C-alpha cells in the first residue's frame, strides 16, 4: 500500500503518575520500529546516568529538560508512527491532577483514547477523572489498558475485577465504545504481540485494535458546515470563499444559505489548486464560489438550505477552565467559535462538576482545572450545533481580553431556552440580553410565575408570519378579542403599528428588516415577562430573524404560526393597496414581489387562509392554547 493512501488515527494516552504510560508508548514505538538508533542511544545514556538496570523507554517521550529532571510529563507531546495499515498520531498527555488542561488540549482532536490503569492499584480517582474528560470531549472510542499485569502474575481475576469496577463507573459516562485490554508495557504482553501468559484473554492486542478501529463512521458527513476563513479575489472575475468543510459534503449546484445574512444562492464551483471538484467532504480545505454576488466575509457560515445550524445569543455550555486567573462574571471574554470571534459575558454558573464523584456543586467562579456548566451571552448571535452532534461547530475557546490567554475550552449543549433556567435568570438577576453600555439590568420586580398564577394563564408569544395580505392581523385581532373575553391579559404588536412609532426610522432593506424584528422581539419579551399573551403580526420574511426572536424565549413559550396564502390570492386581497404600489415600483423590497419570503420549515402551526375560514383559524389557535395548557379549558 502506498503510505499516502493509509488512513489516519489520532489517539491520546493518559494515566496516573507511574501507570507506565510513557513506557507503553515507548513500547509501541519500539516494536513498530519507530525509534531511531541515535534516539535510542540517547535514552540509553540517560537511563545509565540515572542508574537504571534497563533502558527506560519512557525517557523518549520527555522532551523538555525539566521533564527529564523530574521524571514526569509536563506538557502534551506528539509522536508519530505507522504500521502497514495505518498512520498514527499520538498525543501524550500528562495525568497529574494539576494538568487537566493539558489533557483536554491533547484529547480535543483525538479519535480514540487510551487510559492506563496500574493492575496493582486498580481504578484510581484519576482514572475516573480521565474517563470523565474523554466522555465530555466525546472521544468516540476508549481503550482501558490495564497495565503491569506482570506484577500481578498475569491473573485474570485481577483484570476482571478492574473491568467490572470501571464498567460500573462508565455507565454514568457518555462513551459508547469501551474495550479493556490486559497488558504489560514493560514486557510487551498484548501491546503488539499476543501474550502467551494470559491464555484467559481472547481479545485483540492493543496495536491490532488501534489498527482496526473504524473511524470514518465517526465523522459527521450529514450536516454541511463551511465557516468562511478567508475571501480570495485574485481578479474581478473570481470571488471565492476559502475554508475547511468541517462537516458534511457539498457538490456544485447545491442551494446554500449564507449566515447570518440569510441570503440564498447556490454553489458555482468547488475550487482547488488541483482543479475543480465534483464533490467535496469534511475535512477538505477548499474554495467555494457562488452563483450570485452576495456579501460574504470571514466569520460567516455557508450551509445547505435545508439543513441549518441553530442560532442563539445565549448559550449553555460545559467549560473547562484553563487559566490561573479565576473566571469572573464581569470580564467581557472573547469567544472564538469556528472562524468567528465575538465578545461574550458569562451570565450564570449553573454548576461545577466534582470530577471525582460526578456530583454537581454550586460555585461562584471556576478556578484552574474546574469543569462545569455555564450560561454565556454573546454580543452577536452565533450559529452552532450541539457539541454532541458536531464537534467543529459545537466547540469554542474563551480568550481573556487583557492577557490574550486561552482561558477556557467550551462545548455547547444548546441555546438557553428552558423555562426553569429562565426563571432562575430572573431571580438571580442574570442578563441574557445584549445591552447598551452603562445600563444595569435589574431582575423582575414581580416574578413571571407569580404573575401567571394571578392571571390564571401562562405567558406566551404567538408569532404570526406570512405574506402581506395573508390574514395575520385579521386572525390575531379576532383571537385577541376571544382571549380578552376569557379575561386573559393580552398585547397585540402589529407590524404596521410598530413601524409608525418605535421603528419609524427603519426602511425595508434586509438590515432594516432585521432590526425591525429585533426590536419587535425585545418589546414582545418585555410584555411576555409581565405575564401577557403577546400576539405579534409581522411579515418577518427571514428565517434568521425569526430564529433570533425565538431564541429570546423559553422553548415552549414561542409559538410560530405560519399564515399561509398564495401570493396571487394575497395580491387579489391587497387590503392596503401595497401590491399595486410594489408592482409599479413605488415600494422597493416588497416581500413576495421584490424581496424573498423564507417560509418556516417547522412552525408550531400552519393556517391555510385560502381554505380555512377566519372563524376556523381562530378555533384552531384557541384549541392549541388549551391543549398545551397555556390557557385554561
Amino acid at each position: 500500500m502506498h503510505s499516502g493512501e493509509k488512513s489516519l488515527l489520532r489517539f491520546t494516552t493518559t494515566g496516573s503518575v507511574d501507570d507506565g504510560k510513557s513506557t507503553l508508548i515507548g513500547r509501541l514505538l519500539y516494536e513498530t520500529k519507530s525509534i531511531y538508533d541515535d534516539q535510542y542511544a540517547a535514552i540509553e545514556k540517560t537511563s545509565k546516568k540515572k542508574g537504571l538496570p534497563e533502558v527506560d523507554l519512557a525517557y523518549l517521550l520527555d522532551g523538555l529538560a525539566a521533564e527529564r529532571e523530574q521524571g514526569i510529563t509536563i506538557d502534551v507531546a506528539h509522536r508519530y508512527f505507522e504500521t502497514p495499515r495505518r498512520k498514527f498520531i499520538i498525543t501524550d498527555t500528562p495525568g497529574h491532577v494539576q494538568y487537566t488542561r493539558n489533557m483536554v488540549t491533547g484529547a480535543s482532536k483525538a479519535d480514540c483514547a487510551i487510559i492506563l490503569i496500574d493492575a496493582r492499584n486498580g481504578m484510581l480517582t484519576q482514572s475516573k477523572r480521565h474517563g470523565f474528560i474523554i466522555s465530555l470531549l466525546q472521544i468516540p472510542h476508549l481503550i482501558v489498558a490495564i497495565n503491569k499485569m506482570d506484577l500481578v502474575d498475569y491473573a485474570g481475576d485481577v483484570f476482571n475485577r478492574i473491568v467490572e469496577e470501571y464498567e460500573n463507573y462508565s455507565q454514568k459516562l457518555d462513551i459508547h465504545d469501551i474495550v479493556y485490554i490486559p497488558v504489560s508495557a514493560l514486557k510487551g504482553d498484548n501491546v503488539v504481540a499476543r501474550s502467551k501468559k494470559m491464555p484467559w484473554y481472547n481479545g485483540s492486542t492493543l496495536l491490532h485494535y488501534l489498527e482496526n478501529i473504524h473511524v470514518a463512521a465517526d465523522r459527521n458527513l450529514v450536516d454541511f458546515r463551511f465557516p468562511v476563513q478567508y475571501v480570495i479575489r485574485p481578479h474581478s472575475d473570481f470571488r471565492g470563499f476559502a475554508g475547511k468543510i468541517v462537516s458534511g459534503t457539498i457538490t456544485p449546484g447545491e442551494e446554500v444559505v449564507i449566515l447570518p445574512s440569510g441570503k440564498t444562492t447556490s454553489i458555482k464551483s468547488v475550487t482547488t489548486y488541483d482543479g475543480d471538484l465534483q464533490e467535496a467532504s469534511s475535512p477538505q480545505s477548499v474554495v467555494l464560489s457562488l452563483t450570485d454576488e452576495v456579501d460574504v466575509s470571514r466569520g460567516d457560515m455557508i450551509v445547505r438550505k435545508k439543513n441549518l445550524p441553530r442560532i442563539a445569543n445565549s448559550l449553555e455550555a460545559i467549560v473547562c477552565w484553563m487559566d490561573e486567573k479565576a473566571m469572573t462574571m464581569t470580564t467581557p471574554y472573547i469567544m472564538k467559535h469556528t472562524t468567528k470571534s465575538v465578545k461574550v459575558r458569562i451570565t450564570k454558573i449553573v454548576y461545577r462538576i466534582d470530577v471525582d464523584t460526578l456530583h454537581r456543586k454550586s460555585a461562584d467562579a471556576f478556578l484552574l482545572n474546574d469543569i462545569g456548566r455555564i450560561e454565556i451571552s454573546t454580543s452577536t448571535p452565533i450559529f452552532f450545533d450541539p457539541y454532541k452532534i458536531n464537534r467543529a461547530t459545537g466547540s469554542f475557546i474563551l480568550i481573556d481580553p487583557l492577557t490574550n490567554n486561552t482561558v477556557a475550552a467550551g462545548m455547547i449543549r444548546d441555546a438557553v431556552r428552558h423555562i426553569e433556567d429562565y426563571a432562575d435568570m430572573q431571580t438571580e438577576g442574570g442578563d441574557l440580553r445584549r445591552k447598551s453600555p452603562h445600563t444595569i439590568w435589574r431582575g423582575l420586580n414581580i416574578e413571571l410565575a407569580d404573575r401567571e398564577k394571578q392571571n390564571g394563564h401562562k405567558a406566551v408569544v404567538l408569532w404570526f408570519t406570512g405574506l402581506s395580505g395573508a390574514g395575520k392581523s385579521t386572525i390575531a385581532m379576532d383571537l385577541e378579542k376571544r382571549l380578552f373575553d376569557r379575561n386573559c391579559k393580552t398585547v397585540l404588536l402589529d407590524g404596521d403599528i410598530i413601524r409608525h412609532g418605535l421603528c419609524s426610522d427603519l426602511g425595508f432593506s434586509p438590515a432594516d428588516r432585521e432590526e425591525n424584528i429585533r426590536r419587535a422581539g425585545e418589546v414582545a419579551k418585555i410584555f411576555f415577562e409581565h405575564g401577557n399573551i403577546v400576539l405579534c403580526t409581522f411579515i418577518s420574511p427571514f428565517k434568521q430573524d425569526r430564529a433570533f426572536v425565538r431564541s429570546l424565549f423559553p422553548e415552549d413559550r414561542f409559538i410560530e404560526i405560519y399564515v399561509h396564502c398564495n401570493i396571487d390570492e394575497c395580491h387579489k386581497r391587497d387590503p392596503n393597496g401595497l401590491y399595486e404600489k410594489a408592482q409599479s415600483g413605488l415600494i422597493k423590497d416588497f416581500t413576495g414581489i421584490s424581496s424573498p419570503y423564507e417560509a418556516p420549515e417547522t412552525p408550531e402551526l400552519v393556517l391555510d387562509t385560502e381554505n380555512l375560514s377566519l372563524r376556523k383559524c381562530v378555533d384552531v389557535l384557541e384549541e392549541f392554547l388549551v391543549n398545551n395548557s397555556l390557557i385554561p379549558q
Partner: protein
Amino acid sequence: MTFLNISYLRQLESESIHIMREVAAEFKNPVMLYSVGKDSSVMVRLAQKAFYPGKFPFPLMHIDTGYKFPEMYKFREDFCQKIGARLIVEKNEEWIAKGCHPLKEGVDKCCSHLKTGALLDALRKHGFDAAFGGARREEEKSRAKERVFSLRDSFGQWDPKNQRPELWDIYNTRINEGETVRIFPLSNWTEQDIWEYIKLEKIPVVPIYFALQREVIIRNGILIPVSSDSVDDHKKVKRILCRFRSLGCIPCTGAIASEATTIDEIINEVRAAKKSERENRVIDLTSDSSMEQKKKEGYF
C-alpha cells in the same frame, strides 16, 4: 482518493492549509520563513494551494548565514522566480563581517548570532507579527512539545512550561504588544510524509538531497563536506557516495552515506532509516537539551 476515506496525506494537507488561512486572516503582517530545504518547498506548495487561485498574501524570508551550499542559493533564486514569490533575504551583517564561524565561536554561539539573532532582528525590522516555520514535531524531542501556534515574547523567546492550550482546530491568534507568533503548519508531518508528498505533488527540491560522490572529511562520525573554511587537513579527505538528509550551513551539516538517487529511493531509505533525521546536524548534538535551549532563545 476515495470520497469517504480521505488519505492521510490529504488530511495533513487540509490541516496545514487551514492553519495558513487562519494566519493570513487574523495577523496583520505575516511572513513565511524560507530555509530552501525540502520542508520549505512543501510549505510553499501548501501556501500556493491555500490561496489558489490567488497568490499567497505574504513574502518569503530567508535568514542567510552566508554558509549555505551553493546549490541552495541557486535553487532559492530559481524557485522564487518561478513561482513569483517575493523573497526577503536577511543576514546578521555585523557578525558575518567579523567572520563569525562555528570553529571559531563555537557552534552554539555562531547559531545564536547568525540565525537566531538575524531572525529576531529581521522580524523586528519588518514588523512581522507572525512567522511560519517548517519545523516538524517529529524532528526533535523538544519540538514534539511545541504548539502549532507558538507564542514568543518580545525577545522572541519560547516558554515551554507556559504554553497556551491549543484546542480542536481553534487557534488563538491574539497577541500583546511586542509579542510574535511562530506558526508551524507542518507540525504533524513526518520526514516520510514530506517525501511522499514531494513525490505525489512533484515538488522541486535542492539537488544535493540526492546521492553523489562527494569529497568529505569524517569528524565525530559525521561526514562533513569539504569547504575551504572548515578543512584543516586535506589528507583526511575521502570520496564517498552520500547525500544530505537535511540542509543547513556547510560547516555544521553532515552528509549520510547513501545510494538514493531518486525520490522513491529516498522514501525507501527514510522508511528503513535507523537514525533520526537530524543525526547529521552538528547543532543538535552539543547537549541533550541543545534544541530546547536554542528555541527558548528564539530559534526557529
